[in-house]
């Protein structure tokens, strides 16, 4: 399908924050999803569902622009993401399976680097406060290699508390996070969608503090049909 035609289709809904038209993804000669069209507006929380291997991570990576779909286009505010790379990346926060935390750097250095790279400057006390939000008080100066898997994830999730991005794409954000941590993350998602952002996530846990009607679901079950 030509990009122009896709653009005109996507333009039907002016308010869509991120949309995808006719996405097809093939991995290892297996069709994961076919002609998937998605529209995500400000204030949406979207849960991508499906069994293991159904293409949840592939879909999130494609939406973030990390992977190329076999077919189809992704739009940020009705513009192709490849044409608005800088603006799109400024408004995107993607956290994948891997935490992106360097073992050789301290918790504070890791967070500081990640924030600065994404254009957010903070002084040391603000960084400390942000780490306190994710229960890492006292670990600011510990090398990340000395911390647990859950704490690694907390370092990368700490970015959410300071993010100015509209679009949050989170791949299994609750992995290795304790119950209290999950609760506070859900509160954070609520505040974020209230402010006009959107959250796209995969999780095998239920979102406890959201009513089912609040959550939009994308179910990937192409393999099972």
């Amino acid at each position: 399908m030509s990009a122009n035609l896709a653009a005109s289709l996507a333009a039907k809904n002016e308010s869509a924050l991120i949309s995808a038209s006719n996405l097809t993804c093939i991995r290892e000669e297996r069709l994961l999803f076919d002609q998937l069209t998605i529209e995500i507006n400000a204030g949406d929380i979207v849960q991508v569902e499906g069994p293991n291997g159904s293409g949840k991570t592939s879909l999130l990576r494609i939406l973030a622009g990390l992977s190329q779909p076999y077919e189809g286009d992704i739009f940020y505010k009705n513009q192709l993401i490849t044409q608005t790379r800088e603006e799109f990346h400024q408004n995107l926060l993607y956290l994948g399976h891997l935490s992106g935390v360097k073992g050789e750097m301290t918790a504070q250095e890791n967070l500081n680097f990640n924030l600065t790279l994404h254009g957010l400057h903070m002084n040391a006390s603000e960084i400390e406060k942000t780490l306190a939000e994710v229960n890492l008080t006292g670990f600011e100066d510990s090398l990340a290699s000395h911390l647990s898997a859950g704490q690694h994830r907390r370092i990368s999730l700490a970015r959410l508390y300071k993010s100015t991005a509209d679009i949050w794409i989170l791949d299994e954000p609750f992995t290795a996070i304790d119950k209290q941590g999950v609760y506070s993350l859900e509160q954070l998602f609520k505040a974020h969608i209230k402010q006009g952002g959107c959250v796209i996530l995969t999780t095998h846990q239920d979102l406890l503090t959201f009513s089912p009607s609040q959550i939009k679901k994308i179910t990937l079950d192409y393999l099972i049909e």
Partner: protein
Amino acid sequence: MSIANLSYHAVFYLVLKRDLTIAMRHKDDIINPLLFFVIVVTLFPLGIGPESQILSRIAPGIIWVAALLSTLLSLDRLFKSDHSDGSLEQMLLSPQPVFILVLAKIVAHWLITGLPLILIAPLLAVLLHLNEQSYGALILTLLLGTPVLSLLGAIGVALTVGIKKGGVLLSLLVLPLYIPVLIFATSAIDTAALGLPYSGQIAIIAALFFGSLTLSPFAVGAALKVSTN
């Protein structure tokens, strides 16, 4: 907290500082390639014998081949650990231009592996009875040539970073690209030993340096996008 567009300079400095911090805390990255370089060079006099004439004849080749191999040994670190812990994809998803990020990482790699080689090379040249007139040429070729090794090598690493056992493939990809540097560098040192001007060879290495400096970050950026796909 403030939101600001970082200047290219600030982004470059940020990534450079990060990579150097990591290297300083993970000293193997600096010591291993250097130790490899020293050991390879010192093995030659032991194997060939102490005749100064033979050694001084082959010294430029030995030093340069050892420099190539030790750079190759260290190349893997350039993107591999960032790829395996996910920080590479975070960098690619940042609003900063990829070529600046890549250039900063390559410069950090050269400072960690190339610069120590240059500092220790004169010492090893003494060991190999390198002709006294050649020292200037040796340092000059290393100064211009080792950045080329890092710049061209980065393309190979970026292409193979997603492959589990890419080591052999990396050397197959990268070593042929190193041949021009090797030829002109050793030729410059040989020419200097005869007391002749070697500016022609230096000019060619300089051209290789500037060519790869301007083009390689873009190639690396494109290769990384393919590798993280």
